[in-house]
């Protein structure tokens, strides 16, 4: 690796440089592609050396591997031999870290010297549901510090479930002069102060996307911190999750001087009147989050009214619509002009009924992604099924997210969707109860399903028609949906359901289990049967130490295993830690819970090259 590290900062490998230098070296006296221009015209700061055979190969490889973008392909290429590993590392410009603790920032930056874009994922997903005390970890700080020195040319950062502080954002803004894209998904730890620093210092910023992140209100007017003069490069500004008011006049000016802006998602503090002012200035938008979609506070006595219909009609490029945070349904007809072009519609914060939905969705023939609240009832879903023949992704969220609430959607809606939307690939469906028949129907009608997540909110609830467990329904899904990679199960489930998953779910990578199964056999079936399993999250299920041991052969292939409120003992977990030294086995104490003897509250384990992390909080014990 050392010889490669001496090279000068990377050129744009995809640019003309490579082609040009290759041509030049071909024209020279028979000495082929060293990648560094030889004794001819052209920029050269290195002496000519007779290339050794490996170097020839490496240079050819470098030219070829730059075209390889899929990280799975790159990982495979890097395993061929040391030479390939070295060259692949040099040509990898996008670095993906699926678990921030699986590798240290130093190790990553030493191996991959020329990275321009980094994606890092942190906390386990079940932490989103308050199952774990806060401050578990996943800090961005050590990463940004390492990258500040290793990748001064860094352009893009994507973080999911990481803790990011304002200081981290300051380091980022100051360390990377070419910085272009910041995407923070489900992150926390920072506030409007951090945003202000990014806005003011990242002069080449194209993308600032805050998605489902918690942003503290430091009373800082971050929108006004974008440079006031000249045009900006902004292409995407997403801040619908920011729960504090913004300076609208500054936003209006910002939008006016951002000619490349295509994606704009406003927070709920932007009224519909303000939305109007933005939309008429930016008819070129492709993605719009409408903010509150309601009038400013109080009944709008004597407030000038706008022609919202015309404003939307002018947005010929709009394909993705979301927002509607405090929707006043009276305004809904205004979006009708864009319905025919919409491929993505997110009503998941809009408490609208079936009639109101129909007035809009019956025009949305091109819809591919649809997120909605169950307030639309089965009737609303039937309307979607009859119109949206191209639907690929559906998410139905509960308005009243409790176990015993009314349940406006049911098997009727699911059945209708399965019959109408045959191309469905991904579904997330919250309901109070479900029949096996409807799930079986979906497995047969939608063979392209890759993601099936059914959340029957009533725990241990059987099929209300037959009284049977939901085993057969989920069994049909794994059996019939040959492309299934992600599955979330619920309702009354016996070990039989897990037998089906182990037997048929050969491509399943992510599995979520809650309040299910009878015995250790359930978990055994899955760990022994699913060779592609990467992420397994289980809560409140009767799986114990023996079941845990049945996965010993597989844990190094997985990104993580989460088990909370199951039947694990510290000894059982310790046994795993002892037998698999490259696995980090964290036992997390839920401090408020009452301790039943010695039971393990939460087990979270993951492969890692680094051993126990040094930033574990006091409620985490790492077993060895």
């Amino acid at each position, binding site marked *: 690796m050392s010889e490669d590290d001496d090279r000068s900062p990377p050129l744009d490998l995809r640019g003309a440089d490579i082609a040009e230098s290759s041509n030049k070296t071909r024209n020279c006296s028979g000495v082929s592609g060293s990648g560094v221009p030889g004794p001819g015209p052209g920029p050269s700061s290195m002496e000519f050396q007779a290339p050794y055979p490996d170097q020839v190969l490496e240079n050819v490889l470098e030219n070829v591997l730059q075209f390889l973008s899929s990280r799975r392909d790159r990982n495979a290429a890097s395993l061929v031999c040391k030479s390939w590993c070295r060259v692949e590392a040099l040509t990898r410009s996008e670095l993906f870290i699926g678990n921030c603790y699986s590798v240290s920032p130093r190790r990553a930056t030493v191996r991959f010297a020329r990275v321009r874009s980094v994606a890092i994922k942190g906390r386990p997903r*079940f932490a*989103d*549901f*308050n199952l774990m005390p806060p401050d578990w970890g996943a800090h961005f700080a050590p990463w940004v510090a390492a990258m500040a020195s290793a990748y001064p040319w860094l352009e893009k950062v994507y973080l999911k479930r990481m803790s990011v502080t304002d200081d981290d954002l300051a380091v980022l803004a100051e360390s990377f002069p070419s910085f272009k894209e910041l995407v923070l998904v*489900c992150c926390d730890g920072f506030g409007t102060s951090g945003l202000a620093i990014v806005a003011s210092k990242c002069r080449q910023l194209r993308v600032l996307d805050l998605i*489902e992140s*918690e942003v503290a209100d430091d009373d800082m007017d971050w929108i006004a911190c974008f440079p006031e003069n000249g045009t900006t490069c902004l292409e995407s500004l997403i801040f619908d999750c920011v*729960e504090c*008011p913004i300076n609208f006049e500054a936003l209006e000016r910002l939008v006016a001087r951002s000619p490349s802006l295509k994606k704009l998602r406003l927070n*709920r*503090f932007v009224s519909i009147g303000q939305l109007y002012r933005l939309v008429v200035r930016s008819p070129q938008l492709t993605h719009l989050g409408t903010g509150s979609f*309601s*009038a*400013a*506070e*109080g*009944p*709008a*006595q*004597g*407030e*000038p*009214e*706008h022609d919202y219909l015309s404003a939307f009609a002018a947005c010929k490029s709009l394909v993705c619509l979301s927002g509607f*945070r*405090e*929707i*006043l*349904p*009276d305004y809904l007809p205004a979006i009708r002009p864009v319905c025919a072009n919409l491929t993505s519609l997110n009503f998941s*914060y809009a*408490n609208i*009924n079936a009639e109101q939905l129909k007035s809009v969705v019956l025009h949305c023939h091109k819809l591919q992604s649809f997120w909605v*609240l169950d307030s639309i009832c089965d009737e609303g879903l039937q309307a979607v099924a009859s119109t949206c023949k191209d639907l690929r992704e559906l998410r139905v*969220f*509960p*308005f*009243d*997210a*409790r*176990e015993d*609430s*009314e349940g406006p959607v049911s098997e009727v809606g699911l059945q209708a969707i399965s019959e109408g939307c045959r191309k469905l690939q991904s579904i997330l469906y*919250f309901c109070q109860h479900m029949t096996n028949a409807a799930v079986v129907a979906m497995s047969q009608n939608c063979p392209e399903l890759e993601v099936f997540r059914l*959340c029957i*909110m009533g*725990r241990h609830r059987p099929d209300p028609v037959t009284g049977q467990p939901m085993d057969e329904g989920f069994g049909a899904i794994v059996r019939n949906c040959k492309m299934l990679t992600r599955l979330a199960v619920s309702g009354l489930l016996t070990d039989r359901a897990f037998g089906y998953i182990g037997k048929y779910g050969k491509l399943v990578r992510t599995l979520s289990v*809650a*309040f299910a199964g009878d015995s250790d056999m359930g978990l055994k079936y899955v760990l022994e049967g699913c060779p592609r399993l990467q992420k397994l999250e289980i*809560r*409140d299920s009767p799986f114990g130490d023996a079941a845990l041991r049945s996965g010993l052969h597989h844990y190094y292939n997985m990104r993580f295993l989460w088990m909370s*409120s*199951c*039947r694990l003992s510290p000894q059982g977990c310790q046994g795993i830690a002892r037998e698999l030294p490259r696995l980090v086995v964290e036992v997390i104490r*839920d401090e*408020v*819970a*009452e301790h*039943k003897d010695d*039971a393990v509250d939460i087990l979270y384990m993951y492969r890692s090259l680094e051993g126990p992390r040094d930033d574990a909080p006091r409620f985490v014990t790492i077993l060895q």
Partner: protein
Amino acid sequence: MESKVAYETDLNLKATELRLGLPGTDDSEEQALFNARNNKRSFPDASGECGSKSCSDAQHADNETAPPAKAQIVGWPPIRSYRKNNLQPKKTEAEAAGIFVKVSMDGAPYLRKIDLRTYNGYPELLKSLENMFKFTIGAYSEREGYKGSEYAPTYEDKDGDWMLVGDVPWDMFIVSCNRLRIMKGSEARGLGCSV
């Protein structure tokens, strides 16, 4: 800057709203967004199922209201707090939240929006319209419509027909009115006669 007032208005209305929810279970408090992580439970586990924990809705650990009939399990159903805390109550025409209709006047450059619920009857409505658009409406008679003025207030009903304001009883009017239009000139006179 403008949201706090909206919240307070919503909360007041909710107090009188009929819901199927249990008393004390309410999810529109801003606090909850930041407390959700820390505010885990107020009741100790009574019926441990597989060692699971239970609590009242995280948002209301502070309230001394009647405990729910069935304690809610932490983190179930798996909805992120942000989503749970940010759903607004229904705003429909039928509820006390108001009946908003657009008002346009021939020759005026802009529309206005009014809440029909804030008026008790036609006289109040008409007076308000006169003030809003700075014109006068004549005297209304069932036979001849609005005499003494070149304007006539009209409305579009649910069937799409244009009617003269005042022809139907007030209660019927407010639920059937889609929007208002103050007509001018001969069109106004024509409408008065035909109805």
